[in-house]
Every structure is written in C-alpha cells, then in structure tokens.
C-alpha cells in the first residue's frame, strides 16, 4: 500500500494531520479518528478510486457518533455508508444524505502519505 491518493476534495488543506498507519485501516469498512475534539470516520475501499474517504462521524439523524460503524457500499453508482442506527445513506465523497439532503455531513480531505493516513481540515461545511 504505497499509493498517495488524494481525497475527493480538490482544494488542498492548510494542514495535514497524521492519524494512523495504513495497517490500522479495515478494507471495505470504517475506523474513527479524533481530531481536535472532532470525530472523523475514515473509510478504506481498496479497489475504488480514490480509495480513502473521510466524513464526520456524527450521524445528524440518529444524533450519535456512529457512522464509522456503518456498512459501506454503492447506490446508483455513488459510494455510501449506511448509518447503523436508522440506515440513512451518506455519500462518502460529498457527505450528502441521500434520504434527507438537508441533514448532510462534513467531508474531510484524506490521503495516504507513505504508510501514514493523513486527514486535513474539513473542506465542506456541515449543513446542520
């Protein structure tokens, strides 16, 4: 795992923060990192392009910090995670909630730098 893929966001963040090693990731599932008091859900899809996605871990509908424990998949061609609480789907690339777009979540730039996973500051503002 030596690729250095960029996150979906185009604007480069001001600062990259290393959060974990590549071997801490779980293929086709999520882990959670704590960044300056915010919980970030990081998903690793080995055969997708890009392969890393990071969104807010807080489920705005269920009201709990659980999104990293959702099932990852695709719906109509969009990569999504399903909330483990009430099963709404959130787009991994843009944070949009497919069922209730007004309850979408923030996304973060994320990349693999060597063996390190790095997360940047959020590049879209949560709608909540």
């Amino acid at each position, binding site marked *: 795992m030596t690729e250095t893929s960029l996150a979906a966001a185009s604007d480069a963040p001001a600062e990259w923060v290393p*959060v*974990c090693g590549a071997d*801490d990731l*779980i*293929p*086709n*599932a999520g*882990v*959670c*990192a*704590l960044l300056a*008091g915010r*919980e970030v859900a*990081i998903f690793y*899809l080995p055969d*997708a392009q890009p392969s890393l996605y990071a969104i807010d871990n*807080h489920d705005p509908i*269920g*009201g*709990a*910090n*659980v999104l990293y*424990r*959702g*099932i*990852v*998949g*695709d*719906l*109509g*061609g969009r*990569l*999504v995670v*399903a909330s*483990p*609480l009430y*099963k709404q*789907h959130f787009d991994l690339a843009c944070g949009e909630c497919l069922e209730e777009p007004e309850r979408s979540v923030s996304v973060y730039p994320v990349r693999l730098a060597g063996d390190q996973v790095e997360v940047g500051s959020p590049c879209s503002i949560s709608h909540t």
Partner: protein
Amino acid sequence: MDRQRLVVLGNGMVGHQFLVALADSGRADAFEVTVFGEEPRAAYDRVHLSEFFDGTSADELSLVQPGFYEAHGFTLRTSDPVAAIDPGARTVTNAAGETFGYDHLLLATGSYPFVPPLPGRDGDHCFVYRTIEDLEAITAGAADSEIGVVVGGGLLGLEAANALKHLGLQAHVVEFAPRLMAVQLDEGGGDMLRRKVEELGVGVHTGRNTREIVPGETRRYRMNFADGECLETDLIVFSAGIRPRDELARHAGLQVGERGGIVIDDQCRTSDPNIFAIGECALWGGRIFGLVAPGYQMAKVAAAQLLGEEGAFTGADMSTKLKLLGVDVASIGDAHAATKGSVCYTYQDQRAQVYKRIVVNAEGDRLLGAVLVGEAKDYGTLLQYCLNGIELPDHPDDLILPQRAGGGSLGLGPDKLPDTAQICSCHDVSKGAIVAAIDDGCTTIGALKSGTCAGTGCGGCVPLLKSLLDVELAKRGLEVNTDICEHFPHTRQELYHLVRVGGLRTFAELLAKHGRGRGCDICKPAVASILATCWNDYVLEAPHAPLQDTNDTFLANMQKDGTYSIVPRVPGGEITPEKLIVMGEVAKEFDLYTKITGAQRIDLFGARVEQLPDIWRRLVDAGLESGHAYAKALRTVKSCVGSTWCRYGVDDSVGLAIELENRYTGLRSPHKLKFAVSGCTRECAEAQGKDIGVIATEHGWNLYVCGNGGMKPRHADLCATALDKSTLITYVDRLLMFYVRTADRLQRTSVWLENLEGGLDYLRAVVIEDKLGIAAELEAEMGHVINTYECEWKKTVDDPERLKRFRRFVNSDAAETGLRYVRERGQRRPARETEGDKAEVGA
C-alpha cells in the same frame, strides 16, 4: 325512540355470529339485546372442538373477543336455559320462572346429538360429543378404559374416534349404514376411507345395527348387534347424527317439520313474524343444514331483516373438505350421482390409496359433484367448476387423472372464474372482492389475507388465491420485482442456492459471478447470513466482517446513543447463582443498566464499544457464551419449570429447552428465531406465540410452528402431536433448514408460512412425510451448522487481530465525550435532550 327488545335464545356459533353481524352494522344500539345460553360459557368454536384433546383450552376455543358483549351493551345470561315462549304475550320464561318481554325473538337453539333408543344406552361410560363438558366427561371416562366405541361412522363419529385414539384407547367405529360417511361418500370412496382408517388402527364395523348394551364379560359393556355378533368395550360415544332443538318452538305452537326443525322462510322468519330461527334448529325448504357456513348465512339474513335491510337465504352448498384421522376427504355437490342422466368418471389407485370420482351431467359439459378420498388437492378447482357451472374440458377425466411430467397443469385458471365465484368458502370471499382488494393495493398474499380474510380459515383456497393474485398483477402490467437490491437480480432464496450449489465462500465471489457494483447494507448482511448458514465460518473473518451489520460486527446490540447492550446466553432461562453473581459484578463494575428481558435473559446496557472485549472476557471466563441477541439467529428457548418442580408438570420442559437451545445456537437465519417449551398444557412458556413451540402432553411432545408475538401476533399452528424427543428434533431440524432455504430476507416464520403455497399441509408434507425427498439433505446441513459452532465472543477475545476493531479511536485512547447519562431508580440511563444540565458524562 325506545329501544326494541331483542331476545336471543342460544349462544352457539350461529347465535354468536348473529350478534357479530348486528354489532358490525353499527346500529346495535337500536336494540336492547338479551342472550340466553344454557351452557356455562359464551360461544366457542364447536367445529374445532376436537382440538380440545390436543391441548387447546376452552378459552382458546372461545369465539368471543374480550369485552364484546359489554362494548355493544348485550346482556349475556349463561347457564340460564329458557323454559317457555309465549308468542301471544311476547315473553319468554326461564327455568327459574322469571319472565322477559320481547319485540323480536331469535331462536338459535342448535341441535342435540341423537342417541338411538337402545336398552342400556345411559350407562355412566356412555357419552355424546358436542360440548366442552361432553369432552371433559369423555376424558375422565377414558382414564379407566382401554377400549372405546363410537356409534356412528359419519363425519363427527370419525372425529370422535380420532379423539378416543388420542386419549390412548383402542378405538372402534360402529355404523348402521354399509359404509363410512354414507351421506357424503359413494361406495368406492367409503371403501377407500375404511381401508385407510383401519390402517390407522381403528376398528370399522359397518352394516351393524346395535340392538342393546349389556354388561360385558371381559369389558365394562357388551354391544349386541342385530346380526348376532357382539363387541365388548369400556366406553361408548354416540355420534349418530343430530336433531334440531325445536322443543320450545313446538310447545309455543310455531310450525315445525314432520321430522323436526322450526320451519322458516327465505328471511329466516318462523310462522310467527316476530320470531326468527337460524342454524341447525331451523328447517328451510324441508332441509336442516348441519354445517356452520349455512348457519352463518342465516345469521346475516336475520340481522339484515331486523335492521330493515334486504337479504334472503336461498339454500347453501353442502360441499365439504376435511381431514379425518389424517385422511383427506372431500365431497362436492351431487356426490351420489342422483341427478337423472348423470355420468361418472372414477379413478382409483389402491397402492397410493387414492379414490376420486366426478359426476358429470348428461351432456358431459358441466360438473355436478365429486368425491375425493386420500388426496383432495383438486377440491378447490372442482368446487369452482361445480358452483359456477363452468364448461368442462373435452375430457373431464383429465381433472382427476394424475398429472405426470410433461402433462401440463389442467387446473382451472382464475381467469375463467366469474366475479361472483366464491374463492374462500370459510369467509365467503368472492373473486370480485379479492380483485377489488388488489386494486386497493393488496399485492401480496399476506396483504390479501389481512385485507379480505380470504385464506385465513381452513387455508384450502390459498393456492387459488395465489394464482389469482399472480394473474391480476400480470394484467395490471405489474411485474413484482423480487430482486433483493440493485446489486443482485435475484431473490434471497436464489442467492442461497447460488451460494450452496456454487460452493461460493465469500461475498466477493458471489458478486463477481452473479452481481454488479459493490453491494450495500441490504445485500451484504443477507449474504453474510447465507454464508454463515451454509459454511458457518467465523463471522468476523476478514472477508465477512465488513458485510455484517454493526450488531454482528461488534457482537452486541447498538442502542440509541451508539453504545451497546450485552445479552449472555442463559439456555432455557436456567442460571446458576455463580453466573448470576458474575453478571451482577460485571454490571456493577462497568455501570451497566440492567434489565430482565422478555426472553428469560439479562440485558446489560450502556457498554462502550472499547469496553466490550473486557466485559466478554469476564463473562466467558465465568462460562457464559454469546446469546446472539445481536444476530438474525436463534435467540432463546423459553421454558417453564416443568415436571422437575411443578406440581402440574407433565415432562421436563427445562431439560428439553436447554437441549434445543444448545443445539441450534449460532444458526444464522433470515430473521431471528424464538422457541419455547411448556411442561404441560397450561402453557406457561407461551410456546404458541413462538417460531417453534413445544408443549408436553401425556402422550409426548406437541410441536407448534410459526407463531409470533410482537407487531403482528400469530398463533402458532399445531404441526405434529405426541412426538418422542428424537422425532421432535428431527422435525425441527428439517423445518428450520427448510425455512432458511426458502424464506425472504427478514421474513419471520409466521409470514413465511402465510406465504408458503399449500400452507401448513405443504409444510407437514415436506417436514414429516418428506414429500420433496430433501429431508436427509436438510438434516445434514443442520448437522454441519451444529458441529461447527463456536462461541463468537470467545473466539474474538482470544484473537488480538480482531480486537483491534474494538478500538474507539485509531489515534487515541480517549473515551467518547458525547455520551450523557442521568441516574434513575438507582441505575444510569441516557439523558434526554432536555436534561443537559443534570447529566453526567459517560465514563
């Protein structure tokens, strides 16, 4: 306006149905209703009276919804027989001499069992078969008897013989006519029935005219027949037909038939216009109708008359289909070919013991009647031909000849039926009503059943209902898409077979071969469950872990705040004090909210994901295992304390519950599975509301299947009776595996059975008779699951690689900060949004 006084005499099935019709009209308050019943209890289901012997209680047989009489202001006087009617004064007088006035009187006094006037017929071990009290008396009488004789080989007589057999007696049937069920069957049908009944160990004595009953030499009684033969027995049940209860009407001067029965017109009025009569006491067109359906029709007509509405009773079809002593028997229309010029076709297979005859008109284009013995699956089709006068195919005998491979089906397509065709005879639902319900959005069998009641009586019409639904959906251009999701053009059942037959071991293999895209939260858990059932690999193995719902991933149940609850397995609800103490200590140490579940287990709430492994280690070390409360799998086998302690216990329900729970632990299924075992028919474990329910009886275990509590309660069906333990387990193995193979995703057994074509009969055929020849396969598949079971908690806490998954943050050991709790009744619970101030931070 003054309310009119309406007095109802008789509170049997038909009398009760009249009250229901009145209540359903919404205008019952126009009447002041008083109901007199001579039995000590309100109306109950006499048709299913025999189930009393299978452990069905008097309460369960009741037809009366709790609060029904009160809600509609009806006064019910049980154990209060009326002694006289005075039509001139418009009063009735009860046995106690009290007099009640009426504006309208309804007679639903029913019938009584006819006992032939034989010398010796009133011995203390001579009974009749009509009321719950009769059955209780027979049960008591059977206790000191070994042989029982039923006088009368009709429909009820054979039921009574079955009941005696169930009570452990050696049963005989004595019939005056030359064959069994002489009213419904022709000679060939009667012969076939006799053969089958004799094979079941019931003695059949036809053409026997009993002359007298005298004290026996080897047994309590001896029955002497007119031909000089005799039969010794300990107990006698008379079931030689019914006679209308018309004595009150007769004494009141109402017109009665020569051979009994209160004469009524098409509006169910007697010769006194203020008095109606319905049901088995009524004589219409010179006939007494001894079935419940015509009685119900009369009840509707009489209620309509009182409400000033139209309606007429115009006779009733007396066709019947039933299972007697496990033998299918059906009779339709003119079964005896009494119609002038009629022609018969007969098919007989002595090896399979099947007899079928159809009676066709002289022109050969209309069906007049039919007799079926040993196999009655064509009943629905033949009845439709007969009732609706549908033109027969060129070769009518094709209708009863066996359908061999390549022959194609000759069943009657629902398209040919007129809208008036009655599809469900139990609830009188027409094709038109069903089509209307489909128009209103009932597009599944389940929805049609709850929307129209069709198929909820005997269930015999469900196959026809299904094909009608399919045809109507196709007509509307509705293709029912049964694909599980956008990733697989297959149903769950198809995926199951693709996995099993293709030997596919991972989701990726299945997706590459049969799907598209990446999968989703619908197909991934469904496939994970199928893989687990087929191969039983550890569910958190790398390729399987991302498929699981969070509950399966973390082997606990996620609660609203994202923490988990933990339910250790407590097989059968039996737990040692030592284990109980460990659970208490763990709950105390981790400050877990503790509650007893409805399934005789203990649920510990509020564990954070990173605490789970530590908690399990403590539990596993104490010998506790995962309870799979998080999985679509066997949850629990509830039990009562059974014969071990209970004064009334018949068998060891706890022992069996533990054995069943340990056997099926870890079986992944389309939805959760709940069992229960009761040690006697008091049914303290509520087994009849479970997917699998077992009840101990004197003769062995009774197996109930496909019940449900919860959102849509369903009373379980009695699948098999008097089983020994190993047979019981074999049936449960087969049934569960058949369910796992064929159910939809997230379909409980209750809904599965409702949608299973052929219903309970088909399920019995597969599970008990092995009709599909797959029993050995099903058992082997279950054997694999049982032999490869491992506790998932133990496996997880022993595997450092798996434990990584339970870290809350990949970059910090900090605990989550968002959890807020308040203390209530000595325990903590999640704070409500309005309680922000007094909440403590979870730790």
